[in-house]
């Protein structure tokens, strides 16, 4: 007996369903067998296939014509139906759909954007390295202050003593002059311990990493390039391995290229190359720091051993430091030092330290914006749900289950949120990159690469689902207990208008409250910026053009360098438009913090209450005059203060108060470090006392600070400070020209306005403030539209009631008061709740505030004023519409 073709039989059984499937299939088989017997197998098979094709076509046609019965459908089928239905109803209401999707795209987009930043900065603190959760930055803590730097001998002791670590690395950054093919340029490098790449788990794309030998001075200098630098400077040429390049006038051999995606061990910065720590003596002007226990310059990052915790590590490091303290007791090197251990996503410096507090605030703010969006949308959907109550009641009466109705409303919400999320992701391609735009100008190689990875997409999807639960549940909940009979009978009379819309009114009040909280946050940041701009940092940055010089990479010796500095000053002073000119090793309030030193003051008995160090800067003549730092006593540094003259310095007011107290500091003496019995103290005489200036932040307490002449002490890299009435363009060009004429080999770069650099000090406030203003404006607009919408809707419902009131003698003023009053009540409740929320927001922002309290009255007054204007508009327009209702025509309407 032949069998029908198997595939056709399978198809047939799929096409034919229902209770009669068996009989029908039996008929097919019987007819097939008869044909096979009478006319042969081939004919029968062809017939079977033809029959199958017809049956399949019939089945498809039947399915299309016959509406599927609602009962007994699978969940999947009803979901597909609901999605189709949702799309149809959205297409039918293009206005509502556009507004809703746009609002959702804004709300979700704000969250995705901030999250993409959090994801890149905090969740991926050291791109390119392995298992960053095992890494920890190690610092000293001295009386509550974090001191991030260690000396190389400290590093060696800790590295040997810490059993909780599987590896410890030390590193420092250094700007270097690189010469490749006789072409000079500046590059950013990290000087690192030899185990740097191994501990971080960074592979080499090419060549090898450093060997333990290379950590010792005197070995052949080697260098590992970053992938970016290798691409840019060597065009990905694999033959670079073994090639020699000149770094700071020394020959270095390229031994490796790090894997792509690794930019260095400091978050937010991107380095071009890494040099082994053994090359430090030839790399920096000050000579070898490798065997100087007092010279703290290395940052440490360790990898926890399997099973070890940060707390165990901290305890162990404390005991190692205890041992160091005992060994070096005579020198008081580790007076009261403890260890601190930070996870990399909460490192005390680098991009993370700057961005973390702001990002955490922004993330919560974005959440608030989303809440407002949801409240607004819930209001819109409720209005739609009321309009659709009849439809829903009809469906319920025809046998639709209540859960089925709720499911459909939720799916409609999901479709909206899905479209919003797609909009958000499209916008994200652009908004994610905005973070980079906020980066202040800096001499540092700032690197903020925000990548949109799967985590960000998942986050966006999760936010979209969460919004659905927030905004679509309210109308669904309202629809579920709907009383069919009442709704169908009821023609939308005004009587329901009040009690029934409590939820919508609550939503309006919530929106007002949330937007007040946001606006207060924005206002506080703006006021901080404003205060910061007015706050004097102790110097006047406006009108000062700065530019960086690097004599070391041009091969200058100390003597030549001092002479060259003097020539630069003479030359620039003579340029037209120059009011004053000076040099300094660092600029105040830049992104790079200051440098600190131990001092011993003649006649001051050291106590434990002394500051751990004083700020130190090497500056040129007339520095105080150039930056307009007031000279309180004595004099500014002058061109006479050169190497051949006695060593002098000027000190800050706070320095004078701490170390000289009632004595006259002018003529007093201090020295760097501590006196050693075997050495004559190198005293420096105080010739002037100047006002305190801010070094790192505008909110820091006044710091003790000393400035010594760069022409006596020398620093091979320095900043030229020029006070001029001319702008950056004119003066910059003149300075470039002058430098080229003096010595074209000396790099003179990053010519910019000092004021732009000191803005770095308010970077956090600017980032938070700008975004809060955007979010706040968004919230205000949403709340305004929301209040207006709800009031207009209520007025619409109450037209009949208003008509009756007018007909029985109410004046138009009464009606106006009635409507405006109900709006004002709502907004008033929102205002009170919002002000309470704002106090919380203010507390959250406290760390970012400059010169104002979290309860700053001006901010609060401004926000209340602004909101009142918007609220008045939102109330008065519907109230006016109510007042001009024509009683005769409204009463005729029904």
């Amino acid at each position: 007996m032949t069998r029908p073709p198997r595939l056709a039989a399978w198809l047939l059984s799929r096409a034919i369903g229902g209770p009669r499937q068996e009989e029908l299939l039996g008929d097919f088989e019987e007819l097939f067998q008869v044909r096979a017997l009478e006319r042969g197998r081939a004919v029968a098979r062809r017939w079977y296939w033809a029959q199958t094709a017809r049956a399949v076509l019939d089945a498809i046609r039947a399915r299309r014509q016959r509406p599927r019965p609602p009962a007994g459908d699978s969940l999947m089928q009803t979901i597909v139906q609901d999605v189709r239905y949702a799309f149809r109803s959205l297409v039918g209401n293009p206005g509502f759909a556009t507004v809703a999707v746009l609002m959702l795209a804004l709300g979700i987009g704000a969250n995705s954007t901030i999250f993409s930043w959090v994801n890149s900065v905090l969740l991926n603190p050291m791109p390119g390295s392995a298992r960053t959760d095992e890494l920890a930055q190690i610092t000293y803590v001295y009386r509550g202050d974090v001191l991030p730097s260690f000396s190389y001998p400290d590093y060696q002791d800790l590295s040997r003593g810490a059993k909780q670590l599987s590896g410890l690395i030390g590193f420092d950054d250094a700007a270097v002059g690189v010469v490749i093919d006789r072409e000079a340029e500046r590059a950013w490098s990290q000087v690192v311990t030899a185990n740097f790449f191994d501990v971080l788990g960074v592979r080499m794309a090419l060549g090898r990493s450093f060997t333990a030998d290379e950590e010792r001075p005197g070995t052949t200098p080697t260098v590992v390039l970053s992938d970016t630098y290798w691409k840019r400077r060597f065009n990905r040429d694999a033959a670079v391995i073994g090639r020699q390049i000149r770094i700071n006038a020394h020959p270095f051999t390229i031994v490796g290229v790090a894997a792509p995606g690794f930019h260095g061990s400091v978050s937010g910065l991107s380095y071009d190359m890494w040099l082994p720590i053994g090359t430090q003596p030839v790399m920096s002007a000050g000579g070898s720091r490798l065997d100087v226990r007092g010279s703290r310059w290395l940052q440490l990052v360790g990898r926890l051993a399997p099973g070890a915790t940060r707390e165990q590590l901290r305890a162990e490091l404390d005991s190692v430091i205890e041992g160091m303290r005992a060994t070096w007791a005579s020198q008081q090197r580790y007076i009261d030092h403890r260890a601190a251990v930070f996870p990399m996503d909460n490192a005390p410096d680098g991009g993370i330290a700057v961005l973390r507090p702001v990002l955490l605030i922004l993330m919560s703010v974005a959440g608030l914006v989303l809440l407002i969006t949801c409240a607004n949308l819930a209001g819109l959907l409720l209005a739609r749900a009321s309009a659709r109550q009849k439809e829903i009641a009809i469906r319920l009466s025809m046998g639709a289950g209540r859960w089925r109705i709720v499911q459909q409303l939720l799916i409609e919400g999901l479709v909206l949120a899905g479209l919003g999320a797609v909009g958000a992701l499209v916008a994200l391609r652009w908004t994610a990159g905005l973070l980079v735009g906020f980066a202040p100008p800096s001499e540092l190689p700032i690197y903020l690469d925000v990548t949109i990875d799967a985590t960000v997409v998942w986050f966006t999807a999760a936010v979209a689902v969460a919004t659905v639960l927030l905004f679509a549940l309210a109308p669904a909940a309202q629809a579920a207990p709907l009383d069919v009979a009442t709704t169908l009978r009821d023609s939308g009379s005004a009587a329901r208008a009040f009690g029934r819309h409590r939820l919508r009114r609550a939503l309006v009040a919530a929106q007002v409250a949330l937007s007040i909280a946001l606006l207060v946050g924005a206002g506080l940041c703006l006021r901080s910026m404003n205060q910061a701009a007015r706050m004097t940092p102790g110097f006047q940055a406006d009108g000062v053009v700065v530019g960086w010089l690097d004599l070391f990479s041009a091969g200058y010796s100390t003597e030549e360098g001092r002479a060259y500095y003097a020539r630069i000053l003479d030359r620039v002073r003579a340029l037209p438009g120059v009011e004053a000119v000076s040099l300094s090793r660092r600029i105040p309030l830049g992104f790079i913090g200051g440098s600190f030193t131990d001092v011993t003051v003649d006649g001051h008995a050291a106590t434990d209450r002394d500051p751990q160090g004083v700020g130190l800067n090497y500056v040129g003549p007339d520095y105080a005059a150039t930056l307009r730092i007031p000279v309180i006593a004595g004099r500014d540094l002058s061109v006479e203060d050169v190497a051949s003259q006695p060593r002098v310095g000027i000190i800050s007011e706070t320095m004078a108060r701490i170390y000289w107290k009632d004595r006259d500091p002018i003529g007093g003496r201090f020295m760097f470090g501590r006196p050693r019995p075997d050495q004559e103290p190198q005293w420096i005489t105080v010739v002037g006392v100047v006002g305190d200036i801010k070094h790192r932040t505008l909110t820091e307490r006044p710091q003790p600070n000393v400035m010594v002449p760069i022409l006596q002490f020398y620093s091979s890299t320095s900043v030229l400070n020029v006070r001029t009435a001319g702008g950056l363009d004119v003066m910059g060009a003149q300075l470039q020209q002058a430098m080229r004429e003096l010595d074209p080999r000396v790099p003179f770069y990053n010519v910019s306005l000092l004021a732009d650099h000191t803005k770095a000090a308010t970077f956090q406030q600017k980032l938070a403030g700008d975004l809060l203003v955007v979010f706040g404006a968004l919230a205000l607009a949403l709340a305004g539209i929301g209040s207006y919408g709800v009031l207009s809707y209520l007025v619409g419902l109450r037209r009949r009631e208003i008509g009756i009131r007018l007909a029985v003698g109410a004046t138009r003023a009464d009606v106006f008061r009635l409507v405006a009053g109900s709006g004002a009540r709502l907004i008033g409740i929102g205002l009170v709740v919002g002000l309470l929320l704002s106090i919380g927001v203010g507390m959250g922002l406290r760390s970012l505030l400059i010169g104002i309290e979290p309860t700053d009255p001006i901010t609060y007054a401004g926000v209340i004023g602004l909101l009142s204007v918007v609220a008045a508009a939102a109330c008065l327009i519907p109230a006016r519409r109510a007042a001009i209702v024509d009683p005769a025509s409204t009463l005729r309407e029904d």
Partner: protein
Amino acid sequence: MPRATPPPVLGEFEQIVMLALVRLGADAYGAAVCSEIEKRSGRGVSVSAVHTTLERLEQKGLVRSRIGDPTPQRGGKRKRHFEVAALGMKSLQASYRSLRNMADGLEHLLGEPA
């Protein structure tokens, strides 16, 4: 008591299927109907179309059905036997009558002996 509604009007294929049922009598089931139609009309039929039609006729109350016994030739699947119901007979008669009335006197044109 309202007057009984006239029997439903039959479509052409429905008439053919019903005639096959009448012709087959007690032996009428799906495959037999198909074979009968093919044999008599000389045209191929779609088995699924025959079944759809039978199902529709049954829903209208013109045809009745019952489950029969399986045979090995059918792959062990049972049969469904059909029988023309009383209403169906009336419909068939009405259809035939109207066809005959319409054709009356046109026999020479329709290719049938007078």
